[in-house]
């Protein structure tokens, strides 16, 4: 009796498992068939795989609508949409894709990725397409040049991501500051910051300027101050020269440290949620347009505003940007370019503004864009026009790591700005020598 029970048990479990695998396997074979169809040269439809960075539902909706519109206009092309979160995940995904020959055909990714991936041949140069492109002259010049490495264009900008000074008007008023006059210079920023810091005993309960003290995005905040102080980039891409320890850059790091010394709420730049600005505990911070949209909801709605880029030596800011890239391994270059062209059209650009609040990048749309909200949008447009961006060098990730380490040391007061940034520069120099 017991034996029979045991045998029955084993048999049923195995059956269940086989059924499970079969149910699962069906799908696998379907996929195989699909990919088989792609490999076959006689198939009527060209199938492209598009991978974009990020997983926000709003942007996903945008992409799905755009892809549907594109496929309607080009019935011979089929696009499969894929997505993956920002940061390490995305890098891993691309790395394994390229390592195994299963990389997507079109990629939406950050500017910084160009540095490492262009030398590896993972992105295709788009010059021959761009030169015959009608939209070229209308496209914002700075956006085009940000998408190029050594005079060749590799990426067409989709989502500009300028870092803007965002401030809380309510907190300004409470501290007796004019909510319509945000700081324009470093001196003013420091003055405002001092007035806005509130302490209870030793602990800071409200700070003026929300600035992170650790994490792997510190370089963005540093870049803003560095560029305002006249240093264009962390590394001079053309001459492979380290710029992050120049006198101006050191001054920028020292300024960040001075802000910290006046009293800040510490947070980790890896987790934007920790930014005290988002909970009304900081009166100013740096963020991008989607941060602004995010914060301008709920309790803070209508209480926050954007300011034009600040200046110490130059009026500039750091402008990140995400691009469309053509994979170096794709077999369907013409089709990929068609898709890129479609996404970069005026109509799609304006749709991105209306749906997602993404600033347009065409001169012909500038006036229309600024008219909608003169104060804020002028500042945004300026930021994109002034912004430089991340170093597009093969060792970019090592640069970030070194600079972030240095900034952490500065913010925690372990080393002074000069020593820390010199150490970082040595590390970067070693990377340059290893190339």
């Amino acid at each position: 009796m017991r034996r029979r029970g045991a045998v029955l048990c084993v048999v049923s479990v195995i059956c269940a498992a086989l059924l499970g695998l079969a149910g699962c396997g069906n799908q696998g074979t379907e996929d195989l068939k699909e990919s088989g169809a792609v490999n076959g040269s006689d198939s009527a439809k060209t199938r492209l795989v598009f991978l974009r960075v990020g997983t926000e539902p709003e942007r996903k909706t945008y992409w799905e609508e755009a892809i549907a519109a594109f496929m309607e206009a080009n019935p011979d092309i089929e696009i499969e949409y894929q997505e993956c979160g920002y940061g390490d995940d995305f890098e891993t995904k691309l790395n394994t894709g390229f390592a195994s020959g299963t990389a997507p055909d079109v990629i939406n990714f950050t500017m910084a990725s160009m540095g490492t991936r262009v030398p590896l041949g993972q992105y295709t140069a788009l010059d021959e397409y761009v030169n015959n492109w009608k939209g070229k002259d209308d496209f914002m010049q700075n956006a085009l040049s940000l998408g190029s490495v050594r005079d060749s264009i590799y990426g067409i900008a989709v989502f500009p991501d300028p870092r803007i000074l965002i401030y809380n008007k309510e907190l300004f008023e409470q501290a007796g500051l004019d909510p319509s006059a945000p700081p324009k210079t470093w001196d003013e920023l420091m003055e405002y910051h001092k007035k806005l810091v509130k302490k209870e005993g030793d602990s800071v309960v409200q700070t003026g300027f929300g600035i992170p003290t650790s994490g792997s995005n510190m370089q963005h905040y540093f870049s803003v101050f560095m560029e305002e102080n006249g240093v264009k980039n962390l590394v001079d891409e053309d001459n492979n020269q380290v710029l992050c320890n120049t006198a101006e850059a050191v001054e920028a790091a020292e300024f960040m440290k001075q802000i910290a010394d006046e009293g800040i709420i510490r947070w980790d730049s890896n987790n934007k949620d920790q930014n005290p600005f988002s909970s009304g505990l900081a009166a100013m911070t740096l963020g991008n347009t989607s941060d602004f949209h995010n914060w301008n909801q709920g309790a803070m709605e209508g209480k926050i505003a954007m300011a034009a880029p600040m200046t110490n030596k130059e009026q500039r800011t750091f402008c990140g940007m995400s691009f469309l890239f053509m994979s170096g391994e794709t077999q369907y270059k013409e089709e990929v370019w068609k898709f890129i062209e479609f996404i970069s059209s005026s109509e799609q650009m304006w749709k991105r503004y209306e749906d997602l609040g993404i600033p347009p990048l065409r001169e012909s749309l500038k006036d229309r864009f600024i008219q909608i909200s003169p104060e804020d949008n002028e500042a945004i447009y300026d930021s994109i026009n002034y912004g430089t961006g991340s170093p597009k060098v093969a060792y970019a990730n090592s640069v970030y790591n070194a600079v972030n380490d240095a900034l952490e040391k500065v913010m925690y007061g372990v080393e002074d700005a000069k020593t820390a940034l010199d150490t970082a520069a040595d590390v970067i120099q070693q990377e340059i020598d290893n190339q």
Partner: protein
Amino acid sequence: MKKKKWEHSIWIVGMTVASLIMMIPIIMMFSTSFKTMEEIKSPVFHLLPEHFSLVNYQNAMSNGNWLIYFRNSICITGTAVVFSLLFNSIAGYAFARLKFRGSRIMFILLMVGLMMPPQVTMLPTFLILAKFPLMGGNNLLGAGGTGLVNTCAGLVIPLISGSYGVFMCKQFYENFPRSLDEAAEIDGAGKWRTYFMIYLPNSKAILATLGLLKAVAVWNDYMWPLVMTNSESMKTVQLALTMFKTESGVQWNQMMAAAVLAALPMFVLFLCAQKYFIQGIVTSGLK
């Protein structure tokens, strides 16, 4: 008798307090899944939400095709658990009870495999699957196609392998009374029959424990499905959870709602498995 009752009350109070402390983060998670974003962002913290509403669950589930995600996860977890339990327990029995040439060195190699963190071997494993011969358009040498990438088989098969389970089963079977073997030998049962008739029916406790651990590991795995799958139709629950985490912030309430739902199957599984942990299998075998 009186002393015993008194002791029992202390036990109940003590364990309740300890359990509550353990549960604080879980309670926070649960209550957040009912809150509005505004309440989450406000500087004042309440353990319980101001007003309960299921709207987060609704919104979270209407974002994306969760039926498919759950189906995929259940499919993958089920297959991986059943096969790994079967394979591991047989192998564990062989290592624990049978004497064969090379068993020692083979077991040591198995232990070495246990020590390599999965992040390290991920890339080579992935390349092996991508270059798998005769699959996904590959030729005999493994070139040409995409191999087992983005297939269910490619996702599941590596998950079946695990030195951990073999090790655990070996430890468990070593604790079995040898008298059971002797009895089987007297009956004239071979090794296979001994395993299937005596060991397997008596391994409910280890199978429940190991099955639960394996299920939890596979269910919660993030890195491997991320690398292995591309299409929406292959997405697992853990991958889908990241859609609430965007560059400019996290949709905490929806994410926690989805996370609660994602943890539910494992929770149920635990409730089902836990009663087996207490069954005194070995003693019952002796009686």
